[in-house]
């Protein structure tokens, strides 16, 4: 999944306005104000929270048009069988409990009883079966996120409060995946047209969460109010308003003007400016996300693991984190992020120190020696290739930094900057690329099968097209091991193995920076989009 600024002016604006924000004088600056919100007594009811989003959302988690801006509201109003716990392990939502069969080929979920949709109709196992059998598993509909459920054959209604997922292979991560953008949809509303009903997706959908949509004004805002039919405790907040503000710098200005209660700071260059603002706190949150450099494995220069390892040594990743993330991130050497604390292996963090000599040495071992102009060559061919750069988020400056680092060890990378949509077509759909930087965000589970398995090489999410039977074996073992300790052991091996073989060149794990009004409380320490699952617990201190 791709989370980032979708704005054509983001980069020039970032540079100019970043400087401007740092120097702008508001008169209200109060250096040294608290950087984490403090609890302010017992929760009180009432108040409106305002959150900016980048574009009009699509209020249907399975719609192919539900992009990143849709996640906030979809996670707040639709509920899945599970949700990410505050430790990111799957926690009960519409399901109370679950267990897997002895053979691991099915999972049974016991549903919460007495749940109603926001229009008053009863929620039942039929809605779950409808959501999966008639939407997700229907290939013709092209439902978003359906690739996550490739192992699910069908969902059977056992009784009105029980469903069973029948699988074609073992799928230990199912409860975690169900917590990730997998909200259950109302059968009684959407049975004829589940994914493209505009009055639902762009209007007032029927949902089960603590809040429901009150009004959707295209290009302006979406407001939520309490759902009186909600099964759980009544939420504290009276209203939550999502304002559509496309420009990330305008969002910052709005926060400084006091018009925003909580937001993700996309332009991290502005973090110091925001920190000094009165009434705002800045917090960092772990993300299940990592940046990588993919080297196309159809190019024989990159099939030599020494070349890949040399590149990682050559790239000053700490400098990249400092430069584009304002320091909010850590070096990555495997796909399992520190946010998945139960699985993450911190011992790998220092595996590839920034070391040009080591890089040159490894490249020499692979047969690449300096030519007269300092550029490495092998069999008379210079080490030159093109990196495609998609115009989004921090990708442009990151590529420029990598280009400089590679040049220092005699490797010439030419940058080919492309408009995002065209970039996806060339690099992802057609795989017509040599090298490219991007990132993955995935469900809160270490099952990274779709991004690494050889079956996905050249067409699915295995972007470099890396194929390795031993890695395949580890990925399958991870899906088959159902108890936590067994899974931990497999994924520890997987981290060690991927850090050694580098299917992708791992760059860094970013952190999210959230700007929060000091009057807002009860927000769990999760990425803001995950914290939306807990919107019912948020509350505003009385001013």
């Amino acid at each position, binding site marked *: 999944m791709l989370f980032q600024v*979708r704005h054509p002016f983001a980069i020039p604006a970032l540079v100019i306005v970043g400087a401007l924000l740092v120097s702008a004088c508001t008169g209200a600056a109060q250096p040294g104000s608290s950087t984490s919100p403090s609890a302010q007594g017992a929760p009180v009811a009432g108040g409106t929270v305002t959150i900016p989003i980048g574009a009009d959302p699509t209020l249907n988690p399975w719609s192919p048009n539900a992009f990143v801006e849709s996640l906030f509201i979809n996670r707040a109003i639709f509920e899945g069988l599970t949700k990410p716990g505050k430790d990111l392990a799957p926690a009960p939502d519409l399901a109370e409990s679950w267990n897997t069969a002895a053979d691991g080929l099915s999972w049974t979920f016991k549903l919460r009883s007495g749940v109603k949709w926001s229009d008053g109709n009863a929620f039942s196992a039929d809605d779950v079966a409808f959501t999966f059998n008639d939407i997700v598993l229907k290939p013709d509909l*092209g439902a978003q996120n359906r690739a996550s459920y490739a192992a699910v054959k069908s969902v059977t209604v056992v009784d009105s409060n029980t469903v069973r997922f029948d699988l074609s292979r073992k799928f230990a991560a199912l409860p975690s995946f169900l917590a990730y953008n997998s909200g259950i949809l109302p059968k009684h509303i959407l049975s004829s047209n589940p994914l493209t009903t505009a009055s639902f997706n762009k209007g007032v959908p029927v949902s089960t969460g603590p809040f429901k949509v009150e009004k959707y004004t295209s290009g302006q805002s979406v407001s939520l109010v309490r759902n009186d039919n909600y099964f759980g405790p009544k939420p504290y907040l009276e209203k939550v308003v999502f*304002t559509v503000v496309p420009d990330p710098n305008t969002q910052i200005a709005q926060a400084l003007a006091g018009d925003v209660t909580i937001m993700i700071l996309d332009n991290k260059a502005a973090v110091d400016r925001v920190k000094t603002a009165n009434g705002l706190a800045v917090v960092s949150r772990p993300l299940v996300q990592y940046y990588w450099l993919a080297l196309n494995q159809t190019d024989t220069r990159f099939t030599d693991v020494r070349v890949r390892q040399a590149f990682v040594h050559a790239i000053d990743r700490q400098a990249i984190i400092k430069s584009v993330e304002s320091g909010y991130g850590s070096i990555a050497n495997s796909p399992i992020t520190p946010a998945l604390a139960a699985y993450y292996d911190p011992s790998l963090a220092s595996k590839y120190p920034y070391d040009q000599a080591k890089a040159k040495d490894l490249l020499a071992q692979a047969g690449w020696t300096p030519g007269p102009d300092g550029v490495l060559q092998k069999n008379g061919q210079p080490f030159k290739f093109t990196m495609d750069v998609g115009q989004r988020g921090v990708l442009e400056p990151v590529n420029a930094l990598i280009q400089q680092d590679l040049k220092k060890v005699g490797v010439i990378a030419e940058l080919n900057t492309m408009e995002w*949509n065209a970039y996806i077509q060339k690099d992802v759909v057609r795989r017509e690329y040599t090298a490219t930087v991007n990132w993955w965000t995935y469900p809160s589970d270490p099952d990274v099968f779709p991004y690494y398995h050889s079956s996905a090489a050249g067409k699915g999410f295995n972007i470099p097209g890396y194929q390795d039977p031993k890695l395949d074996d580890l990925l399958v073992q991870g899906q088959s091991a159902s108890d936590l300790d067994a899974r931990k052991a497999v994924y520890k091996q997987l981290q060690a193995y991927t850090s050694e073989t580098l299917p992708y060149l791992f760059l860094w794990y970013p952190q999210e920076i959230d700007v929060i009004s000091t009057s807002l409380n009860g927000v769990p320490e999760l990425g803001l989009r995950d914290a939306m699952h807990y919107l019912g617990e948020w509350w505003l201190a009385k001013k």
Partner: protein
Amino acid sequence: MPCTTSANGGWLRSDLRFAPADRSGLAAPAVARFLLQRVALGALVIVFASALTFFFVNLAPGGPASIMRFDVSPEQREALIRLMGLDRPVPQRYMEWLAGALHGDLGTSLLTNEPVTGRIADRLPNTLTLAGSALLISIVLGIPIGVVQAVRRGKPIDHLLSLVSAIGLSVPVFWLGIVLILVFAVSLHVLPSAGVTSVSSDTFGDRLAHLVLPAIALATTILPTVARFTRSSMIEVLHEDYVRTATSKGLRPRTVMMRHALRNALIPVVSAIGALVPRLIGGTVVTEAVFGWPGMGRLALEAAQGRDYPLVTGLTVVVAAIAVVATLLVDLAYTRIDPRLRLA
């Protein structure tokens, strides 16, 4: 007929100040014929623009945002292409679109599954309000500034205003927009930062307050041009014989300026303003993004980035129609200002 140029032909008409004598005697049927011809030509321009846009946007690399996601599998992509009918040839799809468009149906948005006409109708009033206000500011400020510069030609005030104009022209709108927000919303707290209304109140005064900053930012894209046009046109007119005659007749300088000089000087300025309307509409793209203004400019940006083919084409048709109508209006205004072209 000298006046048969299309959307951007306004520039060509500045030389009509020295209009041939036969124009002064235009009869009503001639005017009707002229108007009819202009409307027909305008319709042709719009159809041509729609065809060009439809084919070019389909030729552009990439595809609808839903299939050009990083996290969409190949089989999902194929299913979506079939669902959206994009597996059919472009000419066939255009003819179907055109058939619908002739009946007022501009198709269905690929991004939202809503009718394109509805999406544009939602946003059009906001853009017209914003662009109209910016135009008003540009005329109300631009013309007097140009006149002052012409009258005080070469004096310090002329140089100062020229400098300000040059700065106004060269400052990018997204930068100016953020500066305006930081100064007036963040520091001074006198105006709202973004959006078209406040979350809690939706009154006329509130809407007006939200309009001020974006309208000023957008006005800078054309105001300096209006001022410069007025200045040069005014300077030229001030050297005309009839101005000298009027002055030597002993008329008050103010009367000479307003009735004799300005009136004639405005003719090319009005033409220029007509030609500036497309630039103004283009400027809304950036202004609306910075100020979170829910107008057509932002819609166009989203449609282009998301390769929403029917929406991009629909928006082009509407903008082309606005340009055609603006040109027509300029021609009509023209006949009001130039006494030699007055109708019947």
